[in-house]
C-alpha cells in the first residue's frame, strides 16, 4: 500500500506562506502567554491536591458547599470523566490533617454515597521552584546537545535551522497550552513535569523528522551548483515526504491511544506530544529545510557537509 505515490510539491516556492502561517501561530501563542498566562500544575506552583472518588454520581456544587462549610479553602473541579473530583489548595505541610478534614466533612454531610481519597499530592514552594529550574535546565541542555550533534553531523546552518524548528514546535505547543488551558474539564492542560517531558520528547522527535529530510539533501547536494539548490531541496523533500508522514503517523497513532486510554494523569502529556509531533512534522518540511535554503541563498555560499556517505 502507498499513501503518496510520486509527489511533486514545490515546497520552496510556497515557503513564504508557511513562514507567515508559522509566525501567526507563534504570535497568537505568545499573545495568549502574555495575556492569559499558563496554568501551572502543583509541580511548579506548589500546593496540595486531593483526588476524591465517589461511588455514585455526585454534584460538584454540592461537594463544594460541603467542603466550604468544613473550612477547606480551595478549588474543586471534575477530574477526568468518572466520578472523581480534584481539590486543590495551598500547600499544607500536614496532608494527614487535610485528608481527615475532607473525609470527615464528606462522611458527615454526603450520606449514602461513599467516597474514597485515592490520591494526595503535596508540593512545597521551595521544591516547586527547584522543579521549575531543573525543567528549564533540561530543556536548554537538550537543545544545546541537539545543536552540537546536528552541527557535528551536518553543518552549523542545518543545525541552527533544526533548533529553530524545535523552538517553533515547543513554543507553538506552549501557546496552545496557554490558549486552551482550563477550557476542557477532561484535560486541564496544566504545566507540570510531565509537560516538560513532553517538550523534550517533542524536541528529540522534531529533529528526527528534520534529519530525515536533511539526510536526503546532504546525499544529493554534494558537488551541485547553488543554482540547482532549489530543485534539489524540493526533490529531496518530495522523496522523503512519504517516510516523514508515516514515521510521524505511527507515533501519532500510539500517542492518540495514550490520550484515549491512559487516563487523566497522562492526558495533558499525550496532548502535548500529539500536537508537538504534528507541528514538528510540518516544521521539518516547511520551516527547517526552507530556512537552510534561504540562509544558503542569502549568504550565497555553497554547502560543505560532513559525514555524507555515498556508496
Amino acid at each position, binding site marked *: *500500500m502507498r499513501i503518496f505515490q510520486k509527489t511533486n510539491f514545490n515546497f520552496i516556492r510556497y515557503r513564504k506562506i508557511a513562514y507567515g502561517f508559522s509566525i501567526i501561530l507563534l504570535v497568537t501563542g505568545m499573545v495568549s502567554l502574555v495575556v492569559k498566562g499558563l496554568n501551572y500544575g502543583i509541580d511548579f506552583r506548589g500546593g496540595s491536591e486531593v483526588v476524591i*472518588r465517589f461511588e455514585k454520581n455526585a454534584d460538584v456544587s454540592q461537594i463544594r458547599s460541603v467542603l466550604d462549610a468544613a473550612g477547606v479553602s480551595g478549588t474543586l473541579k471534575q477530574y477526568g470523566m468518572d466520578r472523581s473530583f480534584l481539590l486543590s489548595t495551598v500547600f499544607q*505541610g*500536614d496532608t494527614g490533617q487535610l*485528608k*481527615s478534614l475532607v473525609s470527615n466533612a464528606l462522611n458527615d454531610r454526603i450520606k449514602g454515597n461513599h467516597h*474514597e481519597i*485515592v*490520591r*494526595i*499530592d*503535596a*508540593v*512545597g*514552594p*521551595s*521544591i516547586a*521552584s*527547584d522543579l521549575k529550574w*531543573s*525543567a528549564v*535546565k*533540561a530543556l536548554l541542555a*537538550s537543545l544545546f*546537545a*541537539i545543536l552540537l*550533534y*546536528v552541527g557535528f553531523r551536518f553543518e552549523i546552518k542545518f543545525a541552527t535551522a533544526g533548533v529553530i524548528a524545535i523552538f517553533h514546535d515547543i513554543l507553538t505547543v506552549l501557546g496552545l497550552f496557554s490558549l486552551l488551558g482550563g477550557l476542557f474539564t477532561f484535560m486541564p492542560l496544566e504545566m507540570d*513535569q*510531565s509537560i*516538560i*517531558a513532553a517538550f*523534550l*520528547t517533542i524536541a*528529540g522527535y522534531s*529533529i*528526527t523528522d528534520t*534529519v530525515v529530510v536533511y*539526510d536526503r539533501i546532504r546525499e544529493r547536494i554534494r558537488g551541485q551548483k547553488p543554482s540547482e539548490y532549489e530543485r534539489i531541496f524540493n526533490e529531496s523533500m518530495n522523496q*522523503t515526504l*512519504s*517516510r516523514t508522514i*508515516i*514515521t510521524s*503517523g*505511527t*507515533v*501519532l*497513532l*500510539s*500517542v492518540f*491511544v*495514550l490520550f484515549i*486510554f*491512559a*487516563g487523566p*494523569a497522562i492526558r495533558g502529556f499525550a496532548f502535548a*506530544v500529539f500536537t508537538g509531533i504534528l507541528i514538528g512534522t510540518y516544521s521539518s518540511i516547511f520551516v527547517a529545510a526552507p530556512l537552510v535554503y534561504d540562509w544558503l541563498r542569502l549568504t550565497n555560499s555553497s554547502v560543505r557537509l560532513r559525514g555524507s*556517505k555515498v*556508496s
Partner: protein
Amino acid sequence: MKNKRFNLFLIAIVTLVACWSLWPTWRDYSLSKQLDSFASPQDSLKYALTHREEIENARKKSLKLGLDLKGGMHLVMEVDQVDLFEQKAWNKDGKFAAILQNVRAKAAQSDARVIDLLSAEFRSENIPLSRYFYDIRNSNQEIVTKLEKESEEALIRAKEIIRNRIDQYGVAEPVITTQGSRKIIIELPGVSDENRVRNLLKGTAKLEFRLLREPEEMVRTLDRINSYLVQNNQNRVAVQGSPVADTSAVAKAPLPPGAKPAEPVTMQPSAKPLYDVIGVFQNGTAYTAEASKDYVVTLLHRSDIEALLPQDSELLLAAKPDVGKNGEKLYSIYLVRKAPELTGGVITEAKATFGSQGVQPEVLMSMNSEGTSKWARITGANIGKRIAIVLDGAVYSAPVVQSKIPSGSSVINGIGSLEEAKDLEIVLKAGALPAPVRIIEERTVGPSLGADYIRAGMLSLSWSFCAVSVFMLVYYKKAGIAADIALVLNILIVLSVLAGFNASLSLPGIAGIVLTIGMAVDANVLIYERIREELAEGKSVITAVTQGYDRAFSSILDSHVTTLSAAFLLYTYGIGPIQGFAVTLMIGTSASLFTAIVVTREIFHLLLTKNLMSDKSFG
C-alpha cells in the same frame, strides 16, 4: 557469512536473556492467579505454604511496579540546616538570631544552599563567621568548609535514622536516597496508614531529661509576665496574633477547683491578660485550655517574654492534655531548666508496654553504662524534685524523684495509645535526628487508583501495539511481519531490562513504552521506504535490501541519537515519575536500534536465501 552467523547468535542470546529475565514475573503472575483461584482461604494458605520458596523467589525477581501503580507514598523531606547551624553556634545573641531569621526566610523561598545564604548574610552584616562558629582564629572559608561537612554528615545521619525507623516500622522494599545537600527522598510502596508513617518520620526524637524549677519560681515568673503584658497593653490595643475568640473561649470554660478564677473578659484591655489564657493551681502548676494553646505557645516564644524568664529557663507545654472535670482539655505548662540533665543519646533499649495499672501505655527505657551512672547521680541529688521527660520540646511527664535510680531505667508515660507508644519505641531506638526534618513534597496514591492506572496502562499498551502492528502489516505486507517481530522483541527487551536491573515500572514508564512502540517502527519505515526506492530504480531484491539498510542507516542513527540524548537529559534533570518515563524511552530507543537494524535484516536474509522474498514483499 561468519558475520551473519554472529548476528543470529546475538539475536538468540538477547531473546533468551530477555525471556529468562521476565520468567520470574510470569511465574509471580501465574502463582498469584493460582492463589486467587482457590475456593477457600485455607486451601490457598496451604498452597502458599507448600510453594513458599517458589513464590518468594518469583516475587523477589519479578518486574517491580512503581509507587503509582502499586499504591504508596513518595516523600521528600528536607533537613533543617538553619537549625543545624544554630546548634553549632555558640555565644548566640540577638544579632545572631536576627541573621538566622533572615537566612531562614530566604531559604524557604529559594533552593540556594543554606550555607551560601548564611555566609552572604554575615558578609553583608560585616561580621566574621568566627564570632559565632568554631574558633575565633578560623577564616570564613575554613568555617564554611567545616559547616558544609557538618551538614553533609547530618544529611547522611538523618537518612540512616529514617531508614532505621522505617525498617522498625516494617515497610516492604522502602527506597531511601538523598538528593542535593538537604533533601531525603523516601519511597514507601503499599503503605496503608500514611498518617502514622508521617508522624513517625517527622519527629526529631530528641529526648531530654530536664529539671523543673521550683513552683514558687513558676508563680513569680508568670506574675512578672502578666504585669509586663499589662504595661504593654497600654500601648498596644491587641496583642498580636490574639483573636478575641481565643480568650473568650477560655473564659467560658469552667475552671477546675483550686485554680485562681480567671477574670471575665471585658472589652477594654484586661487587667490580667496572661491569666485570661493561663490558669494556675494552688500547688503552682499552670495550665492552658486547648482553645488558647496556640496563642499561648506563640506568646511564650516571643523574645521579649523569654527575656522575663529566670536565667537558663524555658517554659514548655505538655505533649498531651489532661482532661479537666468538665471534659475540657487542659495542657500543663512547665518551667524547666534550659540545659538538659541527660539526653536521649544514652538510651539503648526502649519497649512499649502497659503501665502498672495495666491501662496506661508507657515506654520503658534502659541506658548505657555512662547514662546509668549519670542518671543515678542526677536522681540521687534531686530527690523530692521533679524531672520533666521532654521529647521534641513537649513534656510527656514530670514525675517527682522518689529515690536514687541506680539501674539506668526510666519510663515515659502520658501517652495516648499503645500504637503511639510503639511509634515512640521505634523513634527512640532509631535515635534522634541531627536536626529537624520537614516534609516538603508528598505524593500518595491509594491502591484502588493504582489498579486503575494498571488497567489504563495495559489498555494503552495493547491498543497501541495492535494499531501500529496492523498498520505495518497493511502498509508493508510481508516486510511488516518482520517489523512486527522486531517490535515484540523490543517490548520484551524493555520489560526485561527493567526487571533485570530491579527498576520499577510506573505509569509514565508505560507511557514511555507506548511512545517507544510508535517510534521503534520508525527505523523500519525509513529502511523500507528506502528499499522501495531502490526497487523502483529497478534493482534486484537482494541489492535493494542491502542498499536500503546501508543508506537508511545514517538517518536512523541520527534520529536515535537525538532522541536518546533528549531522554538522557530528561533522566538527569527530571525527578521521580519523569525519570521512569525517560528510562523506558532510553531503553526502548536503544533496543529499537538493535531490533530494527539487526533483527529485521536477519529475517530478510533468511527469507531471501529461501527465495521467499520478491519485489512485492515491501508493499
